[in-house]
């Protein structure tokens, strides 16, 4: 073993399948045995650039159902790629078991090694470990489900026509962001459990029976009683619009319901990815950096290899200032990598400031701390918990307040002693789903009356809905089949405006 350590695995930029396997073994050895990463088995697929474009278009899944919006996406990417406006991602990785990672044919050997470390051990272990992925995705079944979805959809097209299927899909896609569960629905009771409850209730009533109650005069049925019996439906507001439509839309055919379900499942599958962008990329970037450096330290790769890896790594984690050319928001790779590395630094080499801010982890075992963070946080809480003052200084983060009533924008806080907590809290809020997706919930389904559906949009800090909402409402009413109403209410519950699409 030791003898081989002094010898680089290979030299030169050309890759072969044998070399990929050798690098994978070497990286896997470090990742699993040294750093204790827990991964799904890997399936590494080498593809050509056109196939990468295809994979882009199908939102990263190896199989997707046909829809024009994917065509649009494909055309857009292809165009940009042809013009050289953008390169292709070096890899795509799919949250499945086995974890499928695509490597591009055009990559050089160091890039392939980087991608293997990034995707096959970084993302892979994140998919397996993070609580959101565990809770909301089923890595074993997703590929099979997509195969089913595709076949089912194509059968529907044959049977009911492209147009009919496309209509439903368009409408569902419009509501996709409101088609996810953020909290687990209680499991429905099985028939046995239902019967058992019924029996218990009867038994209780029987035990409580007392003839004297019969002598009490019954209260005349007032408004309250009637309201209770007829009931407002749903009893609690529902935020998963697609789920509500799938279960309750009065006019949908069974196959249409199934399509709604397919879109909803897809949305749910992608939900954790949206919630952990910074963490996921940060984690994967941190690990490709750490693993490949370890490889270098062991003498398994040479200087040229490392230089290429580092130059590409540097490009990935570049964060431009807000006023620089090419600024495109906060780069999740940069922020994630910086935070993950920073946690390691806090553990290994804490400053007095770190000890004050992070007494729990300063000087701890970085591997354990990182593992815990990866498993139990999402972007919002991760930033809220682990963004250190030092990093705020390094990135020169500052917050701007944009308030409707002020004529000017106000610099709220900057990277100074008074501002750290505020900046951290605000940045964390930026990753809060409530800030990105308007709060729209089903409050009433008039199932005994005109079957209209009423939704409430609770305004978040006075922010209105965009103009597109009218269009979305039309889509909603197409699925619902009857009148759909959208009330915008403020924080106090006062109705501010009402839109209605008559079905």
């Amino acid at each position, binding site marked *: 073993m030791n003898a081989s350590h002094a010898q680089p695995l290979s030299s030169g930029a050309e890759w072969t399948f044998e070399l990929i396997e050798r690098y994978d073994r070497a990286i896997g050895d470090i990742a699993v045995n040294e750093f204790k990463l827990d991964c799904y088995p890997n399936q590494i697929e080498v593809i050509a650039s056109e*196939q990468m474009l*295809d994979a882009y278009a199908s939102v990263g899944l190896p199989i997707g159902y046909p829809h024009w919006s994917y065509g649009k996406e494909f055309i857009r990417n292809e165009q940009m790629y042809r013009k050289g406006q953008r390169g292709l991602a070096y890899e795509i990785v799919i949250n499945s078991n086995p974890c499928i990672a695509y490597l591009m044919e055009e990559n050089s050997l160091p890039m392939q090694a980087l991608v293997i470390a990034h995707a096959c051990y970084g993302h892979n272990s994140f998919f397996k470990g993070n609580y959101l992925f565990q809770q909301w995705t089923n890595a074993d079944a997703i590929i099979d489900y997509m195969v089913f979805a595709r076949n089912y959809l194509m059968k529907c097209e044959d049977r009911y026509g492209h147009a009919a299927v496309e209509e439903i899909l368009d409408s569902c896609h419009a509501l996709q962001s409101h088609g996810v569960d953020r909290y687990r629905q209680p499991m429905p009771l099985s028939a046995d459990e239902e019967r058992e409850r019924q029996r218990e209730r009867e038994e209780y009533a029987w035990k409580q029976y007392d003839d004297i109650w019969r002598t009490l005069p019954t209260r005349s049925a007032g408004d309250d009683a009637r309201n209770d019996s007829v009931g407002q439906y749903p009893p609690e507001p529902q935020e998963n619009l697609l789920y509500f439509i799938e279960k309750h839309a009065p006019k949908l055919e069974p196959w249409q319901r199934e399509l709604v379900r397919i879109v909803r499942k897809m949305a749910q599958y992608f939900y954790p990815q949206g919630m952990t962008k910074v963490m996921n990329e940060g984690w994967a970037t941190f690990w490709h950096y750490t693993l490949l450096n370890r490889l270098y330290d062991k003498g398994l790769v040479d200087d040229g290899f490392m230089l290429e890896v580092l130059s590409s790594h540097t490009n990935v984690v570049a964060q431009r200032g807000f006023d620089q050319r090419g600024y495109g928001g906060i780069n999740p790779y940069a922020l994630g990598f910086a935070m993950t590395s920073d946690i390691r630094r806090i553990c290994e080499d804490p400053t007095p400031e770190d000890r004050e801010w992070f007494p729990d982890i300063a000087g701890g075992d970085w591997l354990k701390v990182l593992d815990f963070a990866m498993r139990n946080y999402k972007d919002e809480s991760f930033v809220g918990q682990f963004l250190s003052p030092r990093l705020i200084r390094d990135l020169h983060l500052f917050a*701007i307040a944009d308030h409707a009533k002020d004529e000017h924008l106000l610099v709220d806080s900057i990277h100074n002693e008074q501002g750290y907590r505020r900046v951290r809290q605000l940045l964390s809020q930026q990753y809060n789903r409530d800030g990105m997706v308007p709060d729209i919930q089903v409050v009433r389904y008039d199932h005994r009356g005109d079957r209209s559906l009423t939704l409430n949009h609770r305004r978040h800090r006075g922010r209105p809905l965009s103009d597109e909402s009218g269009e979305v409402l039309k889509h909603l009413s197409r699925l619902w089949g009857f009148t759909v109403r959208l009330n915008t209410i403020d924080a106090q519950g006062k109705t501010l405006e009402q839109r209605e699409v008559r079905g």
Partner: protein
Amino acid sequence: MSIVIDRRLNDRNKSAVNRERFLRRYKEQIRKSVSDMVSRRSITDMDRGGNVNIPARDISEPTFNHGSGGDREIVLPGNKQFSPGDKLKRPEGGGGGGGNGGGDGQSEDAEDSFTFSLSREEFMSLFFDDLELPHLVRNMIGDVREYKMQRAGFTPSGVPANLSVTRSLRQALARRIALTAPLKQQIKDLEQREVPPDEEIAELRRRIDRVPFLDDLDLRYRHRVKVPLPISRAVMFCLMDVSASMTEDKKDLAKRFYTLLYLFLSRKYEKVDLVFIRHTDNAQEVDENAFFHDRQSGGTVVLSALKLMQEIMTARYPADSWNIYGAQVSDGDAFGADPEKSRSCLVEHLLPSCRYFAYIEVPDDPMRTSPLSYAYQRIDSEKFAMSSVTQRGEVYPVLRELFKREAA
């Protein structure tokens, strides 16, 4: 633990179906783009793909999201000069400025219009749709080029189906003769001796027997080569009235008509020359750009154009070595004796040497018979076609006879 799979050989066109759906859904917009392209392009240049623009809002996928307004805070990187409490002007033009909004804002700008390329086939198909071409004709002129398989002798390699038995056997025979002749000569010589050495002769005969009847290198296969079918050349005269009454719309219609004829000819003939003759009260030969875009004022004398065509024909395109096609577009206005003279010029001088002459009229009022069409109507020749056209779909029928005849 890891499996490495080579997927490069898999199908590379998984998104083709999605692309096709996209095109179908936005056919109207794309068709409009194609139509714009047609008017911008040169006739000879029509035959390729192109970029299509669709306004981004037409293809947006709406979702519920926040509009601008309300209160929010944005965290940005790269502070250099700001201190808490600084007031900044709101950036112009919505978005609320910076942050996530800024990021989105930028990409929205970039997506103001959605541009993508159509392949040559897609472009041509939309162009033909526009002209309502029947499919048979599309195939005829839409195909890249027709080839003919032609015999080109014999080759020593090929597929068994092309094996030429006669040739192979002839080759074998020649080889056998060539290989055995010296031996036979030797035998003959030996037999001439007083005591023929039987041993030696038998040995020679065995050598002769060892020469195979048919060897691999005897095999000959029929060789075929692809030759492009069109081998002759043609000239197409485009005649157009450019007096003030010809509006841009009418010219656009004319352009489609010329293009269609050109496409047809360029499939059929290897070399197609274009001659553009415009006329008001006198005719000029011009280039394509001037032909379609320059405005002229003046009266209308159709005869001048026909005369010029005749002159050019005699000077540069003798009818015995060129296939001559004529295409005339006019709004039909002609005065005095001009229509009659034009008719007789056409019938007597031009039609005899033309393969085909098509006239389309783009009238202001489709109901009225113009003086020129009144005159032309009396031309009785199967080389002549005319029609009044007000919409693109009516262009093709003018040429229908031509296509039908040539396709047969």
